[in-house]
């Protein structure tokens, strides 16, 4: 369901009937943690919001038990912007706890199912927001992407998922996971709707000093679009992903898009950098959940015991794991070995992309190495982390990237990732519209 479909199908009188349908159908999918009870006073287009984003007066849990009773006294900037510009929040969507995970199975509440096949995960961490769009409950939703948490679920659920440049959208009111990586982005069924929501939420915000306005220059229509494919990029991907990727190249070539091979960066190393820097930032950001000012509290004899008992009881395994890794990586004697070395490599990845984008408009890779996996499939943390190999690397440089569904002839969805240079978000969306047209006519 696109925004246009929604506007044609529902009018103000039957908006609560629409809500009742969503509520009923979501019993199978479990995409929402919270749905509004009455929409009769709402005007505009419904949007589902990942529970990582603060909504005034609406419980915001970040998928964690530690915030089970937390009701933000203010809106995130993105929510204010949406509500002022023709959108209304219909509800809050399920996610991996504090956005740590790739399946929503790390939610402290329940697992969301993939609308394309209920035995599969929808991906994560923004799995609820992806599933709500994929199931046709809402035309658009917001997610957050720290290492792929928008693009991977978009790929698994067969929809568009866009992660903007770091700084293009305000993070004010977004619960922090890893502050130099976190970014709010959009799920939709097409590029037009993605752009409509992105144009509403983007821009400089005085409350987020890392935010900025994007330059608006366009790609000239007469230019031949040049896409770089990093060498050996299909190493280790599943057969389905390989076929979808190659078919996409073929159809884009037919439409006059030019392809060149470009150098690859060391993806294994980039993933290692990511899994040092992110836990380091996590250990700092999650320190605020201590049972003192808001959220859950366990009673104790003294303050240290209060912190420890509260965090032990209400934080899940993955937040604990990352907090400990981060504390370790930042501790005296180890920060040179891990955190600082990782930062050197982060700069090298940034330089690598700057160089590549001197000669191509976009880089194309698969979004994920495989299609959606089974709910309950047992994986070690490292196996799960390897699923993020194509998405984490762009975040080291804070680049905009989008996952667009390949044409897979009704088989399981496969997303193709297109990456652009820093602050080239509008150009990426402009070219994505052309790519979308090519894939539809294939």
């Amino acid at each position, binding site marked *: 369901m696109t925004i246009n479909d929604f506007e044609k199908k529902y009018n103000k009188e039957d908006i609560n009937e629409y809500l009742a349908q969503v509520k009923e159908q979501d019993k199978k999918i479990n995409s929402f943690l919270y749905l509004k009870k009455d929409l009769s006073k709402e005007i505009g287009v419904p949007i589902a919001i990942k529970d990582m984003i603060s909504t005034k007066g609406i419980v915001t849990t970040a998928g964690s038990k530690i915030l089970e009773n937390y009701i933000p*006294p203010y809106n995130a900037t993105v929510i204010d912007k949406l509500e002022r510009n023709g959108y209304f929040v219909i509800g809050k969507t399920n996610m991996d706890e504090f956005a740590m995970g790739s399946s929503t199975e790390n939610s402290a509440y329940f697992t969301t199912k993939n609308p394309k096949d209920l035995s599969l995960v929808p991906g994560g961490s923004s799995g609820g927001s992806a599933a709500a769009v994929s199931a046709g409950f809402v035309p658009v939703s917001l997610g957050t992407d720290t290492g792929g948490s928008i693009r991977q679920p978009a790929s698994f659920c067969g929809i568009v998922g866009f992660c903007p440049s770091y700084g293009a959208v305000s993070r004010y009111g977004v619960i922090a996971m890893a502050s*130099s990586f976190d970014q709010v982005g959009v799920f939709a069924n097409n590029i037009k709707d993605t752009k409509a929501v992105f144009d509403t939420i983007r821009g400089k915000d005085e409350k987020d000093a890392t935010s900025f306005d994007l330059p608006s220059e366009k790609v000239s229509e007469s230019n031949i679009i040049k896409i770089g494919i990093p060498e050996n990029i299909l190493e280790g991907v599943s057969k389905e992903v390989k076929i979808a990727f190659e078919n996409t190249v073929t159809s884009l070539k037919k439409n006059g898009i030019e392809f060149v091979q470009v150098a690859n960066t060391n993806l294994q190393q980039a993933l*290692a950098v990511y899994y040092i820097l992110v836990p380091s930032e996590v250990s700092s950001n999650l320190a605020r959940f201590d049972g003192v000012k808001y959220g859950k509290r366990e009673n104790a004899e003294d303050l240290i015991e209060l*912190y420890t008992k509260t965090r032990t009881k209400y934080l899940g395994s993955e937040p604990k794991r990352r907090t*400990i890794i981060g504390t370790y990586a930042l501790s005296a004697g180890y920060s040179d070995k891990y955190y600082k070395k990782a*930062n*050197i490599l982060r*700069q090298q990845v940034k330089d690598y992309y700057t160089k590549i984008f001197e000669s191509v408009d976009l880089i194309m890779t698969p979004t994920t190495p495989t299609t959606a996996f089974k709910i309950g499939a047992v994986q070690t943390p*490292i196996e799960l982390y390897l699923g993020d190999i194509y998405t984490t690397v762009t975040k080291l440089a804070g680049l905009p990237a989008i996952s667009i569904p390949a044409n897979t002839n009704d088989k399981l969805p496969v997303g193709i990732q297109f990456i652009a240079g820093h602050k080239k978000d509008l150009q990426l969306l402009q070219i994505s519209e052309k790519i979308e047209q090519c894939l539809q006519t294939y």
Partner: protein
Amino acid sequence: MNNEVLINTAKLARVDIAENQEKFLKELESILDYVEIVNNAHGNLDKDVNISENQNVFKEDVVESSLSSKDVLKNAPKVSNDYIEIEGIF
């Protein structure tokens, strides 16, 4: 990583992992093994990376209304006389 370091680090992170200590140790060891490759890096250890590329962000120093303490305290687990109440620290 070994048991002693793990217990110490968890203590600093204010989480108690006694119940799953062995599982945590195994998982953390495998993660640390994996990230060991960053040690190949050479360069200036003290140089920071600026991802948004913004520099010197200023704004006018204007007094604006902010959240009321009543609204903020609504989320506090325990409140007395407009203060958040916690266990004694002495």
